[in-house]
């Protein structure tokens, strides 16, 4: 502050945390202007999602000393966002969320640069994500969280004794809300549990049995799901139901009403129909603000060590009184996502084709139709056709050669796994070790050279 000669600086308040020595701080805290300028110049943060949490996160981070932010979101602004997504106005409806959010924050907070990405998170190369110091998640879907988590964990490298390499840890902060409740967590892959380690915290949604819908409906929701899941297909044949098409929603609503009348079931309304069909989660500004603020504060602490960090899961419940609770969850040592990886022992002559087959049979993986990449480079891609064609010739090559003749390394495999009867895409880390190479590999290399 002395350098400003008594003048009020824009970082007046943050300076107290960043420039002064502290007593309850992280182990690597090194207060001073270098720290403050370092946050501005060298720390790059990705905000995933520009919805209720994302808007808050962008604002909070822009006012927490960070200058380089990026935001990714595939959605466009809707009227029903406006009760909480405070960066959007009525005239913005229809525009990409990421672009408007970035623009609004840059207009208000000078010096901040925010790069928007209007696309799906899966559309980005894995390398895109490796560029960020910290990834902040403001998502409402388990699948999206799971995906980002697997990407962040894929950067994690382990020493031979299975301890994580510090510089390869990609920290994440994750928030989620529903009504008056929410959670904020810090994920340091390899050190604290990753999303997949504690996946049981997010139990899958219970669906109504089809026989209940078809034969013994009892509630309004049963009537709605009958119209949505059974009657629609009966009447419309191949035409896909689109929940964002008002005509479609109205049709389901009127069919649900008819069925409810038939069985004497009360309670079918248009609002409930939308809620059931789109699985709408109630959302309000205040909860989003609380959870995002906790996430942003943790981001600042991870980046600067200016205080201790949340260890590692905060729950907030404001419906009955006010309850906050910190739980220290533990890692799943065998986690396929953040753990050292599934170990696959190979022969030097094993071809990429054979390796892909082995992944399908491997009891811990059961990954079918895998695409394989190594350090961001595609070794084989199942799709799109153009990439498949380009990489097809690698299939007959020994994997050992394809990865640069290293005796142990990590590759990433993206394929499909079967979970409770449904197929989902999955990214796995595979640690490969070539057996019997101690002498022979060297010899091979010598003779090859």
């Amino acid at each position, binding site marked *: 502050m002395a350098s400003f000669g008594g003048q009020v600086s824009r970082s007046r308040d943050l300076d107290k945390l960043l420039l002064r020595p502290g007593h309850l701080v992280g182990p690597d805290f090194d207060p001073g202007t270098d720290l403050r300028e370092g946050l501005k110049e060298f720390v790059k943060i990705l905000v995933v999602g520009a919805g209720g949490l994302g808007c808050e996160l962008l604002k*909070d981070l822009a006012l927490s000393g960070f200058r380089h932010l990026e935001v990714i979101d595939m959605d466009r602004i809707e009227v029903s966002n406006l*009760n909480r997504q405070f960066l959007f106005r009525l005239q913005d409806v229809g525009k990409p969320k990421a672009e408007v959010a970035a623009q609004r924050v840059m207009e208000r907070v000078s010096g901040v640069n925010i790069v928007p990405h209007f696309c799906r998170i899966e559309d980005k190369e894995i390398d895109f994500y490796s560029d960020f110091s910290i990834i902040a998640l403001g998502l409402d879907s388990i699948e999206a969280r799971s995906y980002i988590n697997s990407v962040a964990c894929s950067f994690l490298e382990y020493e031979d004794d299975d301890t994580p390499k510090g510089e390869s840890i990609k920290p994440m902060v994750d928030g989620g809300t529903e009504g008056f409740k929410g959670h904020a967590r810090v994920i340091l892959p390899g050190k604290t549990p990753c999303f997949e380690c504690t996946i049981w915290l997010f139990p899958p949604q219970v669906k109504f049995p089809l026989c209940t819908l078809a034969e013994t409906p009892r509630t309004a929701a049963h009537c709605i799901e009958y119209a949505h899941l059974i009657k629609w297909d009966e009447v419309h044949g191949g035409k896909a139901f689109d929940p964002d098409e008002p005509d479609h929603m109205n049709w389901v609503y009127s069919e649900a009403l008819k069925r409810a009348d038939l069985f004497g079931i009360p309670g079918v309304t248009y609002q409930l129909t939308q809620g059931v069909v789109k699985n709408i989660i109630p959302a*309000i500004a205040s909860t989003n603000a609380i959870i995002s603020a906790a996430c942003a504060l943790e981001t600042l602490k991870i980046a600067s060590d200016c205080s201790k960090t949340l260890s590692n899961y905060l729950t907030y419940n404001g419906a*009955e009184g006010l309850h906050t609770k*910190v739980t220290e969850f533990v890692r799943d040592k065998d986690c396929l996502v953040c753990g050292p990886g599934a170990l696959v022992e190979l022969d030097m002559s094993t071809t990429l084709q054979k390796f892909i087959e082995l992944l399908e049979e491997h009891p811990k993986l059961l990954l079918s139709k895998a695409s394989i990449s190594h350090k961001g480079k595609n070794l084989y891609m199942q799709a799109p056709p153009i990439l498949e064609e380009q990489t097809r010739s690698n299939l007959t090559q020994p994997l050992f050669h394809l990865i640069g003749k290293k005796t142990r390394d990590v590759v990433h495999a993206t394929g499909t796994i079967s979970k409770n009867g449904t197929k989902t895409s999955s990214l796995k880390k595979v640690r490969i070790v070539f057996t019997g190479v101690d002498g022979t590999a060297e010899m091979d290399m010598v003779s090859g050279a």
Partner: protein
Amino acid sequence: MAEHKIKYDRQLRIWGELGQVALEKASICLLNCGPTGSETLKNLVLGGIGSITVIDGSKVDEGDLGNNFMLDESSIGHPKAKCVCSFLQELNDSVNAKFIEEYPEKLLESNPSFFAQFSLVIATQLMENSVVKLDRICREANIMLIIARSYGLTGLVRISVKEHAVIETKPDHFLDDLRLNNPWPELKSFADTIDLNTPDPVAHKHIPYVIILVRIAEEWEKSHGGTLPSTRDEKKEFKELIKSKMAAIDEDNYKEAIEASFKLFAPRGISSNLQKIISDNRVELDSTSSDFWVMVAALKEFISNEGGGEPPLEGSIPDMTSSTEHYVNLQMIYQAKAEADYQIIESKVRNILKTIGRDTQSISKAAIKSFCRNARKLTVCRYRSIQEEFTAPNSSELQKYLTDEDYSLAVGFYILLRAADRFAANYNSFPGQFDGEMDEDISRLKTTAVSLLNDLGCNGTTLTEDLINEMCRFGAAEIHAVAAFIGGIASQEVIKLITKQFIPMSGTFIFNGIDHKSQLLSL
């Protein structure tokens, strides 16, 4: 208005049309519009609060731009209240946004009756002596007050209201009102019409568990002198009895009956919470009694007379495996009982209103219905005045917190937040506010904290050096993320108080931004 409905859809699903109307009627006054105040109002403006009045006497300087999103370069030198107000207005044009350029401390002195026009006052970053004055004014005028403070990595939120009675508490997990432990005649006779031994397997597995439990309980009572299972062994035996009636292993309705048998084992009658409410001396009514207490008086009469120890039936049942026909019939039986109970309560309410000299129709049918539906879940919150908390704190609680490791940081911050205000009153700056005086401030803050602890009756207790150092390091900084957190909590509580739904927080919430082990202190 359709657009209004779509815009507020995600929150209407939480507090409904009535909650929204309450918000749109409310007028809120904010004292000081730094980031804590601005963020609190932002959340309320987005939700469609009726009107806001922003009161702040300061002008915007460069430092404010670093922590307040409601200001930008063009605001520098202008009144903060004006700038914040105009940005808030931008968020929602259906909100009536006003500002007054004045320091709250001055307004408290010059025009205390000013505050009587609001539904609720939010005081942010206000020092102890002003908070005490404001609280006295608000209590006298029956205005709700919320105090919010952000300070470095700590802060607090406190509600001050004499009494807040909630009918629609909307708890997440609350035992459904099936009355299995005390079934009324119509439910019993309906249960008797259903053949539990039907040879038709489809019919057998579609008998709702409510019927199964009522019938098996009858059977049990016959062989157990009219009592229901109470010991652990009896409960086990009862579950075995249910199991023995299953016709096939996959009968979900019987599995549900076993799982729900605890509802049958629950004691009859009302909860201790409800007992406390009907025993409250506010049930002694006069013409100034609120609608809530009039209805509680009617409820009390009902419980000891027609209800036979039970409150009015809620009238709804959860989904359960059942044929549509049985389920719909069951629903009607529960609804009919709830309607009959409501009729009795309604006539009691009208009688009581007459007795206390009020218009007998002054409480609507809808209000009485809602009261009956929620009778088991009523909640009354009372808050001590700030003055009382400061002059006569609950010292046994305080001692407990001071020795409990889970509370140590939070209670330390509570003491230090108060000590910081005393410090500021003495030295005209907050501890650590200026760089040059750190060492001196640390020892001064320590002395101030020790004398405060003595005043609170905690002689001999000391706070850790680490915490005192941290508090000085904070130097009264208003960190944006902390302000957004505190503002979020404050706005959440405003919503609960205004909509009269859900249960507001009790005590003083102390934010602990170091490890997030925040606590509620009852002092």
